[in-house]
């Protein structure tokens, strides 16, 4: 690490450079390969530095290098967005709109990072906040970016650590409006269309694009489709096959995760006697806001080609509580709500009403977090955390 006056400079070790280069080769075109390469270097250097010097809790949070430049690091409910750039121009910071206007992506702090691979050097030359970028920056519709000129940025990173310490309630984020969800059929259609688009982020209106990116599953499918050239079908969990004991990727036997003493209470409203011997319970671990949660699906065969299904969400550690304002819902594949349950203060689990479903029917289970907008009390924002698709 080098201090160029007050800016931070790091040397990039040859092995970091090489590893980042190798990892970037799977991306779909030379632009996204370079985005991945620069962001990987940035993450490899910045994260250990942050953890060692300033934010021991920092973890890498969100990256979509196939689609958007930038890397998010999360620490204690605050988000730090790093925007690496290979250009020699340090006259302004350019931040893709995704990092500003998608509520679940938006950060508190934004860092301008210049990388010179030829010199094997990385330089963090300034930072600013979401609030400043929004209010003092200019929006460029031609490449959907927010821009703020260098003199309005803070080039001395010490300022950041001092302000965080002495003024922890500094407003760093401007209010954001929620994005309208895109219906599943339209999302699938757009996935096809964007698979081969050279610049997918500029191909469709931002309101659509931003909303689609919010859903992890859709984003993963687009990324994969662009990298393999094939649109993967929606990951559909065939739950009736569990009755034949087949195993699905990501789903484990409940018994393998939960200690047997707890099993009796794990599906709380279900007396043990009612769970028939044939019932199968599978569990998927989810990491939500740095906490491990379990999504438990219990199924039991019913007459007339039907299955009885119970769905529960709980914490892995019984002593912990679920985050507040999580909404667990059962939806049709078209996205219409069938039923839902919301967490409140000190809930350790929530469960949907048991339902019956004909073999072959598809449905969706969605987990979203609702946060009330502090400035406009009656408006709530919601962010889809998990979407799981099932077929009976």
């Amino acid at each position: 690490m080098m201090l160029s006056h007050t800016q931070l400079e790091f040397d990039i070790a040859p092995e970091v450079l090489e590893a980042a280069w190798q990892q970037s080769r799977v991306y779909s075109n030379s632009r996204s390969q370079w985005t991945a390469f620069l962001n990987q270097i940035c993450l490899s250097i910045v994260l250990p530095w942050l953890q060692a010097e300033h934010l021991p809790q920092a973890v890498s949070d969100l990256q979509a290098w196939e689609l958007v430049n930038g890397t998010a690091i999360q620490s204690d409910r605050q988000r730090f967005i790093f925007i690496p750039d290979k250009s020699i121009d340090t006259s302004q910071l350019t931040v893709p709109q995704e990092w500003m206007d998608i509520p679940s992506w938006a950060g508190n702090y934004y860092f301008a990072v210049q990388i010179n691979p030829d010199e094997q050097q990385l330089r963090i030359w300034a930072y600013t906040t979401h609030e400043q970028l929004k209010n003092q920056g200019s929006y460029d519709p031609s490449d959907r970016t927010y821009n703020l000129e260098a003199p309005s940025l803070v080039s001395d990173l010490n300022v950041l650590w001092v302000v965080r310490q002495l003024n922890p309630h500094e407003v760093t984020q401007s209010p954001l409006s929620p994005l309208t969800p895109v219906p599943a059929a339209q999302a699938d259609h757009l996935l096809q269309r964007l698979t081969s688009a050279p610049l997918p982020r500029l191909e469709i209106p931002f309101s659509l694009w931003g909303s689609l990116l919010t859903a992890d599953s859709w984003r993963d499918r687009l990324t994969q489709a662009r990298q393999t050239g094939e649109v993967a079908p929606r990951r559909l969990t065939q739950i009736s096959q569990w009755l034949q004991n087949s195993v699905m990727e990501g789903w484990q036997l409940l018994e393998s995760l939960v200690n047997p003493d707890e099993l009796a209470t794990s599906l709380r409203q279900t007396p043990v006697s009612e769970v028939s011997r044939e019932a199968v319970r599978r569990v998927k671990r989810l990491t939500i806001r740095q906490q491990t949660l379990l999504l438990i699906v219990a199924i039991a065969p019913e007459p007339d080609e039907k299955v009885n299904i119970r769905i529960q969400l709980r914490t892995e550690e019984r002593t912990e509580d679920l985050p507040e304002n999580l909404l667990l819902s059962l939806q049709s594949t078209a996205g219409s709500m069938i039923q839902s349950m919301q967490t409140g203060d000190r809930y350790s689990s929530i469960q949907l009403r048991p339902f019956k479903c004909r073999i072959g029917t598809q449905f969706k289970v969605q987990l979203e977090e609702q946060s009330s907008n502090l400035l406009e009390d009656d408006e709530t924002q919601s962010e889809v955390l998990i979407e799981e698709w099932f077929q009976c």
Partner: protein
Amino acid sequence: MRQRQDITELFSTFLQFEAERVSGWATDARLRRSAETYIKSIQQNKTSEWLVATYWHRYWQQQSASSSKSATALGHLSAYLQESCYWSTYNVIRQTPGIRHPLSDCFQVAIAEVPKVLRAKDPQHPSSLKTYASYAFSNIIRDFLRQRRELDLCSDWGLLLKLSRKRLKEALAAAGMSESESAQRQLAWQCFETVYLPTKASGLRRLAAPDRQAWEAIATLYNRQRQQLSVPGEDGSPETLERWLAQCVKYTRSYLYPSIDSLNRSRSDEDNSELQDSLVDHAQTNLINDWIEQEEISDRQNQYQQIRAILADAIATFDPTLQQLLILYYQRQYTQQQIAKELGIPQYTVSRKLTKAREKLLLAITQWSQETLHITPTATVVKDIATLLDEWLAAMPEA
């Protein structure tokens, strides 16, 4: 360099260079008349350079950018910041090994950025405009030198990959290209980058010219994407795209290597608008002076003494090596390499220790200003204190 004496001179004269050396001060007659008019209009006891600078700064911020009043205020402030700019340039050049650019060039580049500095600086905050500008000028010159060095090392095609969209746009505008043509070139550049980034990790600078196949791919992509432009134009052949991008390189090089000697000439020389325009509007003058009066000068000097004491106290708690390091860096102006050599420790340790020490000192002063002056430490305030910190440290007596 001769020190400028009276306040009128401070706000109306410009440094002159001859054969890379300062040859003297040149007076801009129009700015001189304007400064005299203003100074006559205010009471004798309020003619400190700080008050006059703050006046013009606020005045500038209230004008629309293209007005002649704005040009006059900018002229006064550019004149005022001549020394700050000169010394920032001098220091950066002294600290940077192997520079081939004359001081006068670097000076001109920095002084041209005065409007941006004025925009970013809040006149209400404690640091003086001079201090703030010195800090900004140093950053501007460092960036300029870094960029020049990189440009010298780049092949034409490598240069295209080191550009930002903003710079390209500016270069095309400077070459007199229309907006629609410029948008087409920008798209061509974007397509070039999408298709033709190097396939080696360290291959940006010496990127070779694209071959026929690559130009075809660039043209295909361009023709697909051009429909999104507001003026989509014709399909581009591979030859057209090659010609366009070669043109972008040419325009960029001449944009980033401007003929520098004309930059510091005061704009108002060529401005034929009536002198009347730049005469001070008295109602407004009084209004601005009322604001300035609220900030007591004696208080500021008193605070400066206190800040020194706080810094000295904080430094006294540092271990002896760190204290020595601060003295070498701030008071004796050693470079980090020189300190590393002197103290026999690696340069990154020097750098890290300096960063940490600076953070602690910044924290101490900000804390003090929060508790004593009840200033909320927002990022803008702390940024402002941080720009002052280096000046305070440099002015500390060696313990």
